């Protein structure tokens, strides 16, 4: 017994190393499988508060770019206004609109933490459950899709960006409506995605637009990027191609969280169908 104690005190560095290393690996592995069940993340109020302060300061530095972008968007929206069209009929009648029911609602939020250079990237935004954000909602900005909400606290939410090993969204080619899946590329380049599993009879061209299909969290036709490279393997049963992403993730300032009002209804129905089978 005494010899054992002497042995342990002599090599105490090694035993301490084992204890601490196992502790940190347990934390790491546990976090990996339970998707951030732990409280050490940036929706934590303390670090969230820090990031909010810092991003307030940062947003001053980018005011000019943001202004330009807003001005451009203003002009685009103004072009869609009724008042900018010339009305050449005199008859007017009032219609109570019962055909259109609002399906998508957009909640604007500011990005307060962002990363693009890790193997798995996350964003934090300054809106949370109090503003109506819930887990699983899609996130876009005015240039294209960004990701989906994975954790929500009262005032902050964490978004798993498209630049994440597990991110997959349904996408399609804008011209011939062929469906595929958009993912992040293998080489951690924040400007490049991969469109997978497009059926073999599609004839994609370099430069063709890739947009959302409407099957997942997003409305149909939100831009994702443009095809930049085709590698067609002979004999494969599906096409894969490289996509130059439309969104510059390192410059994200404001994003829109999309609330699909029919999502629960759709999910409920689909779950029931699975149960019936």
């Amino acid at each position: 017994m005494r010899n054992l104690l002497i042995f342990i005190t002599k090599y105490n560095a090694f035993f301490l190393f084992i204890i601490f290393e196992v502790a940190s690996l347990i934390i790491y592995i546990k976090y990996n499988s339970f998707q951030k069940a732990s409280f050490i993340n940036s929706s934590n109020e303390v670090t969230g508060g820090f990031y909010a302060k810092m991003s307030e300061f940062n947003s001053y530095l980018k005011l000019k770019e943001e202004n330009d972008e807003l001005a451009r968007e203003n002009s685009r929206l103004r072009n869609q206004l009724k008042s900018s069209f010339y009305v050449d009929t005199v008859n007017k009648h009032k219609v109570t609109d019962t055909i259109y029911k609002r399906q998508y609602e957009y909640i604007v939020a500011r990005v307060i933490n962002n990363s693009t250079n890790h193997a798995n990237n996350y964003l934090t935004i300054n809106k949370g459950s109090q503003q109506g954000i819930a887990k699983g909602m899609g996130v876009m900005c005015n240039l294209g899709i960004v990701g989906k909400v994975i954790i929500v606290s009262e005032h902050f939410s964490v978004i798993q960006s498209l630049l994440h090993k597990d991110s997959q969204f349904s996408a399609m080619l804008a011209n011939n409506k062929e469906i595929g899946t958009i993912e992040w590329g293998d080489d951690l380049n924040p400007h490049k995605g991969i469109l997978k599993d497009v059926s073999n009879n599609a004839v994609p061209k370099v430069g063709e637009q890739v947009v959302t299909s409407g099957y997942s969290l997003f409305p149909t036709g939100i831009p994702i990027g443009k095809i930049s490279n085709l590698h067609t393997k002979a004999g494969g049963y599906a096409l894969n191609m490289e996509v130059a992403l439309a969104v510059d993730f390192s410059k994200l300032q404001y994003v829109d969280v999309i609330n699909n009002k029919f999502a629960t209804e759709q999910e409920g129905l689909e779950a029931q169908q699975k149960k019936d089978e």
Partner: protein
Amino acid sequence: MSRNIIINLIRFLVLVFIQVFLLKNISLYNFSTPYFYILFILLLPFETPNVLLFALAFILGLTIDAFYDTPGLHAAACVILAFVRIIFISITVQKDGFDNEPEPTLGIMGLRWFITYASVLTLVHHFFLFNLEAFSLSQLEFTISRVLLSSLFTVFLMLISGLLFFKRKERK
């Protein structure tokens, strides 16, 4: 002794601040990302007891993890770093010679020793950090090149900071 504690506390806060708000946003071609905060563990005094050394490394790692959203990753790499530090120092430094100057800084230990010390420890830390982050051997080449280039960046920053404080000491 209490002066030592205060200096190290300030160093801890400053390094975490620099890492989280400045270096987190820096990345050269997605290959080279500096993790400069480990300088805190490198510069702890020689006489730090092993328990304290491991505990500090663990806490430092968890603090960085809280800001990087990666619970446990940096903590694991930092604990490995602390272990390698103990081995490296026990091999290269004779404990008896240091009564009054107990810190492994550039000014006290000399340029050649400090460069070896910093690069070996940084390489080990970055190797485990990037491999744990990737968590697969499928892109080993890519990961290794990230390790090497990032270590280069980190050691470069360490040398700059070492020279900066080295000069100030001589002037006194």
